[in-house]
C-alpha cells in the first residue's frame, strides 16, 4: 500500500514511543470520532501494534486496511471504521 489510503485518512493518531497496549487503547478511544466508512491511521513504533491493530479490528468488527509509512518513516496502520 502506498502513502494514500483509499479514501484518505480522516484521523491520524500519533502513538510513537507508546508501548503496547497503548496504541490500541488510543485507537479504541478515538475511532468514534470519524464517521463509519472513514479511515483512522495509527502511527506506532511498538512492535506489538503490527499484530494488535489487525486483531483489534477483527475483535471489534472493523476492517484492517494494511500498513504504510508516516512521513518520518514510522509504521502507520490503517483501519476503516465499520461499526
Amino acid at each position, binding site marked *: 500500500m502506498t502513502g494514500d489510503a483509499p479514501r484518505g485518512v480522516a484521523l491520524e493518531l500519533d502513538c510513537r514511543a507508546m508501548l*503496547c497496549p497503548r496504541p490500541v487503547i488510543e485507537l*479504541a478511544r478515538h475511532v468514534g470520532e470519524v464517521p463509519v466508512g472513514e479511515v483512522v491511521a495509527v502511527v506506532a513504533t*511498538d*512492535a506489538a501494534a503490527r499484530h494488535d491493530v*489487525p486483531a483489534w479490528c477483527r475483535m471489534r468488527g472493523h476492517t484492517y486496511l494494511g500498513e504504510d509509512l508516516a512521513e518520518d518513516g514510522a509504521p502507520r496502520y490503517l483501519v476503516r471504521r465499520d461499526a
Partner: protein
Amino acid sequence: MYLDTASSEPLHPAAREVLLAALEHGYADPRRLHGPARTARLLLDNAREATAEALGVRRDEVSFTSSGTDAVHRGLLGLTRPGQVVAHSAVEHSAVLHALAWRPDLTARSAPVDRLGRVEVAALGGADVVALQAANHEVGTLQPVAAAAELGAPVFVDACAAMGRLPLPEGWTTAAGSAHKWGGPAGVGVLLVRAGAGRARWRSPFPADDRVDERVGGFENVAGALASAAALQAVVAERDETAARQRALVDLVRERVARIPDTEVVGDPDDRLPHLVTFSFLYVDGEAIVDALNRRGFEVASGSACTASTLEPSHVLAAMGALTHGNVRLSLTRDATEAEVEALCDVLPGIVAELRAEVGL
C-alpha cells in the same frame, strides 16, 4: 495457587525420594570399574530403562542431556548436514529458532499456522529436515507430526511441552523432552534418537566426549536422570486420570473467561495439551494483569511483550494472528481443584474491568 506448570512443574513426590537416595549412592563416575562406579552405572541404566518404558521407546533410543534445550539442539542439529533446508512451524519454541539461527549454513523455512496455531503441513514440504513440536508450549495446540512425517524428510519433534502428559506422536526421527516440565528436577533433558532411520542419520553436532553415552557430553547427572525417570513413570501411570480432570478444568476456564467482554481465548479447544489454557484481554497490559493476579495469590505466565525479556511480543501469538497484549497463560498442577479454578475465574472479571477503567475504557 501455582498456575505455571508449563514453565516448570513442582517436583513430583515420587522423584523426591529417589533423588535423595540417588544423590547419596550415585555420586561416582559410571565409567569406572570399582564398586561405587558400578552402582552409579546401574542407577543410570535403570533411569534409561524406566524412561524408555514410560515413553514406549527402546532403551538404546534414550539419552540424558543437561537440559531440554540441550536435547533440542542435539536432536535438531544432529539431523542436518551443511547447507540443508530445515522447515519448521512458525510457532516452534525459541530454542529451535535459535539453534537454526546459530547455523548460518542452514536455510530455515518457517511454515505458517492457522488461527488455532496448527501448522499447514504442506508448507513443510520440500525440505531436507522438518522441525515440528508435539504441542505448542504457549497455546497448547497439538501439531500434526505424523502427517508431517509422511512428507518423507526426517522429523525432529520438540516434545518438551507434551512429554509425560500425552503419548509421543508417531513419526519422530529424533525428539526432545525436559524433565522439570513433568515433575522431575531441572538440569535433565531427554534426547530420543530412533533406532534405524534416526541412528543412520543423526551425527552429534557438538564435540565428542568420552562418556557412557556418545550422543551427549559432560559428566552424567545420575541422580537427576533417575529422579526424572521416577517422576515420568508416575506421571504416565496417572496420566489418563490427571488429563481427564485437567481437561474439565480447562473447559471450565475457557467457558468462564469467554464471558468477559473483548476477550480472546486462543488455541485449539479440543485437540490440545490437557493442562494449559491461554487467553488475551483487549486494552489490558500483560505485566499489570500478571501482577494483579499475583497479589491475589494466582501465579501465571504471559506471552505479552511487556512481560518478556525483549520488547517483541510472543512470536506464537503473532503467527496465529491473535492479540498479543493482555495475555495470560494458565497451566495446571496435577492436583488443581475445581474450587481453585473457580476462585480464579471469580476474580478475573473484576481485575480486567479495573485495569481497563484505569486507561479510561
